């Protein structure tokens, strides 16, 4: 005998996570909504790590790097990187825009030395 009954529980197992994923994607195009014009213009050299984190949240990646090799005085820095939406300049290759903050770590607490803003967000969580 052939079983022609619809298997409702199986459909819901597939459909519910799918709907959730679509819903999440629609509500959050990218993670960092804190990069508003106001927040970005508040950035200044000498800020501490915690002050930057208050403005923009926890970064996506951090790493140490040496700076100033060609400027005469080499110094050690901590790089904070926040990734944003895809770079629309690239159609085939995948690149995401990134906002970068570099802290001078030889002093305590480390202070912001330079930064590079590639994207700003339209909305704020505030």
């Amino acid at each position, binding site marked *: 005998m052939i079983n022609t009954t619809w298997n409702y529980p199986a459909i819901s197992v597939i459909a519910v996570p799918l709907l959730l994923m679509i819903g999440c994607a629609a509500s959050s195009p990218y993670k960092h909504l804190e990069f508003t014009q106001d927040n970005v213009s508040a950035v200044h*050299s*000498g800020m501490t790590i915690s002050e930057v984190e208050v403005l923009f949240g926890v970064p996506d990646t951090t790493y140490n*790097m*040496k*700076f*100033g*090799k*060609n*400027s005469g*005085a080499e*110094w050690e*820095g901590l790089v904070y990187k926040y990734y944003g939406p895809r770079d629309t*300049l*690239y*159609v*085939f*290759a995948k*690149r995401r825009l990134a906002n970068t903050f*570099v802290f*001078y770590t030889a*002093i305590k607490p480390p*202070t*912001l*030395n*330079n930064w*590079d803003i590639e994207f700003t967000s339209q909305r704020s969580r505030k």
Partner: protein
Amino acid sequence: MRVVSIFLFCLLTFFLVHAAVKADRKISEEAVIFKQLRDGVFTIFGEEGHGSGFLIDSKGLVLTNQHVVANSSRINVLVNDSIKVAAKLLKADEKMDVAVILIHPSIVRGLPVLKLSRNKDSIAFEGEKVIAIGSPLHQEKILTSGIISKVLETAIISDVNINPGNSGGPLINMDGEVIAINTFGEQVRPGPGVSGSILVTQALNLIEDAIKLSNSAQPPEPRLLPVMPKTHYPLSALEYAASIKKRDTKPYNLTKLVERGKFNIFISTPPYLYRAEKQYELDLSKRRRAREEKGNVGKEGQYNPFDDLKNWYQYLGGYSPTVVVAITPKIGETSGSAFGNLLGAVVLGTSYHGSHEYEYKGDLGYFSLSVNGLVSPEIEHAMIFEPLDFLGADYYGVYEAKDIARSGVFTFPCEIFKPINGSWPDISLKTVSIDKPNDTTVVVVPRQTIEQVWLDFEPYREQMRADSTRLVAKP
């Protein structure tokens, strides 16, 4: 009082030892000559490799070996780290292996002209101290020294360390005179080998002729050509690129863009090249990794295919932040062989066992890369003869090839792929095979390739930005 005496004794001892060390580190006679003359020694780029050469006349005449500039329609001279210009061949003697090339006189203004020894009877003696200046391997303008081992009729044998790239450089005596041109070496491993330099007196007539020719010759334009960047691609980025499990290689291979093209065309970047070089080791180590996992082998005992990335790698050439375009001729069955075998198969069916003859389908005669319609000068170009020589057999027949053709490797600055004002550059490659000089093949580099190549240099750009970033945020 006793304490003061001890202190004074210690102070005196310190100064005496310090003075002795300083005296031991005095500058040698060789170093003084090297410092005086090195700016007059250049790196010469022919189409089959690079060698050395030196300034013999303030009008821009440079003496080198003929084999350095042989078969080269384009010759470039690297005067120092940042000045590279085109040169013109004035006079050459293939058998003697000597050539004189000409660069624009404005480029050599203020540089030392090397004095040639004209003493034919006693130009050198065995045991005499000599130095060589040249650009061997991946080095530029380096000093090696030794003594003359033997003076022959037309050459000098010495124990001076000469390597590929030294060819065409000067062998100089302690009077600061050039006595010979470093040309050949003989080495049997193990052993340091001996070096051969042809006597400069051999070339005096040729030099006189070249000087006469230079009076009427138009020197090439002193336009500065791109030079190899002094910086290197960051090792950490190479390691990351190599660790990516699957890398899309399609954007780098442009061969399929030309239907029935004569050449295979590849564009490569440092991360692509390093990953490609490591592919073989990665394939080999698959089973080993499985055994390591099974046996819970610690990190120290694990096979690491990426353990060659050392900081000193840059001194051996390293991975320059450049884009390399490699053109190799395609290999295929000759039309006569293909027709004969087709006929044989039709007549005799599957019992036919033919003889298949293969050849190169192209032979590189010209290559250029254009950016937005303008030909872009390359940093380095090499057009090398590649032999094709194999003989094999299987159930279907015998396979044979005997041919030789030119391949090309061209190095460009990565900046030619840079987007300007939000739009990507139009890049096209032009190739010509010597058998059909009027048949130019143009390949338009796809945007996918341009994007990928530029993206490959992002870690390098980040490193460059970091290197030039000053410290401003002091508390």
